[in-house]
């Protein structure tokens, strides 16, 4: 019997995978992702423990929000807006925004840092991602605050509300996820190139 015929026969004998086998294969391919998710959730839990702790709420929150308000106000003044910064408020005679927790961009930064820390690669790649990521997100958050002020001043309260949740919060979080994926691609590429050299 020729090899071709034998192959055909053995292929005919092979039964299609059962539902149980399909599920097993699916979860085997999911295994590293599920492990990664577990680490990611654990890392975010640690962040939230810090974020809601007395240490952050009583001592760090106000100075951090105040710094962001001052810098965003500076940005607005560069664009000719006659705004003043006072505590956590940016105001003018036409409109004012009050920065509260959740507007500080820290959750998005924590998502990025958690993703980078959990990703299985050497630390020499990680710290660059964390530093650049936090810097980009910090600047993006200043732009977001200034943009929300402008939306509130020149458009309606409805537009401000929509941008606050949709544009501000969701797109800002997407930016952090995107930076995370960009970093993973960069780190893997760089590692492969180093290995080849």
């Amino acid at each position, binding site marked *: 019997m020729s090899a071709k015929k034998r192959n055909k026969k053995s292929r005919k004998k092979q039964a299609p995978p059962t539902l149980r086998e399909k599920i097993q294969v699916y979860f085997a391919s999911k295994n590293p992702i599920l492990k990664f998710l577990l680490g990611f959730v654990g890392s975010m839990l640690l962040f939230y423990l810090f974020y809601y702790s007395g240490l952050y709420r009583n001592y760090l929150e106000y100075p951090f929000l105040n710094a962001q308000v001052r810098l965003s106000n500076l940005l607005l003044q560069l664009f000719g807006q006659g705004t003043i910064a006072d505590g956590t408020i940016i105001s003018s005679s036409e409109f004012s925004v009050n920065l509260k927790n959740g507007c500080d961009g820290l959750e998005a930064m924590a998502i990025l840092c958690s993703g980078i820390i959990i990703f299985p690669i050497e630390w020499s790649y990680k710290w660059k991602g964390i530093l650049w990521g936090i810097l980009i997100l910090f600047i993006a958050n200043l732009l977001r605050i200034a943009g929300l002020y402008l939306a509130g001043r020149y458009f309606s309260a409805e537009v401000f509300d929509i941008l606050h949740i949709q544009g501000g919060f969701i*797109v800002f979080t997407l930016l952090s996820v995107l930076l995370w994926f*960009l970093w993973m691609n960069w780190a893997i590429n760089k590692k492969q190139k180093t290995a080849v050299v």
Partner: protein
Amino acid sequence: MNAIVKAGLKYFLFFCLIYGSLTAISLIPQVGQWGNAMYRPATERILQSVFQKAYIKLKAKPNDVSAIQIEYASKAKVQENWQIANAGGSRRAIKINGKIYEFDFYKTFFSFYIFFVALMLLSPLPRTELAISLLVGSILYYLFSVFRVVMPLAFFLNQPEVDIYHASDFSMSIIKNVNYYLTIGVNLLVVLILWIGLAFRKNNWQQLLRVS
């Protein structure tokens, strides 16, 4: 590096296009009304089975597609009033005004569900798997959003003036803490966890940005 940044920008533009379009559609009043009407019946049934000592009814708020009102009253008190009103053997109707808890349907469910759908549509999955993952994710996110409604309602139903449930101090402190932590940020985190869990497997995450 340039190829990675280009791929990232391309993804961001596609995301903004899909998410922006879905958001614009969701803001059409008729679509909001439809979503609101779809959300209420199943949620009402779940809340009724969770809080069996209470009469619970979910209503749309007139002229506000983003709000859902939950009207609740004690079953025991309703029955007591019924017995008093019908003490003489006559079958008289009684009118009970329940208390109302109102929540924002968009902030609880719709906006974040759209975010989930946009993320899933841009995921590197074959069509059938995408459809199944989207269905599973939708159910899981819906259940999470119901949990977000259950917790504040549990707090209100345990208030002494409402007098429906009487949770211990320990249980009440858990309910208060869970409500405190259930922020919009946690909503986003749940969406991300569902997306990562459902859309990715061992080696397909590199296909997300399609870096050439």
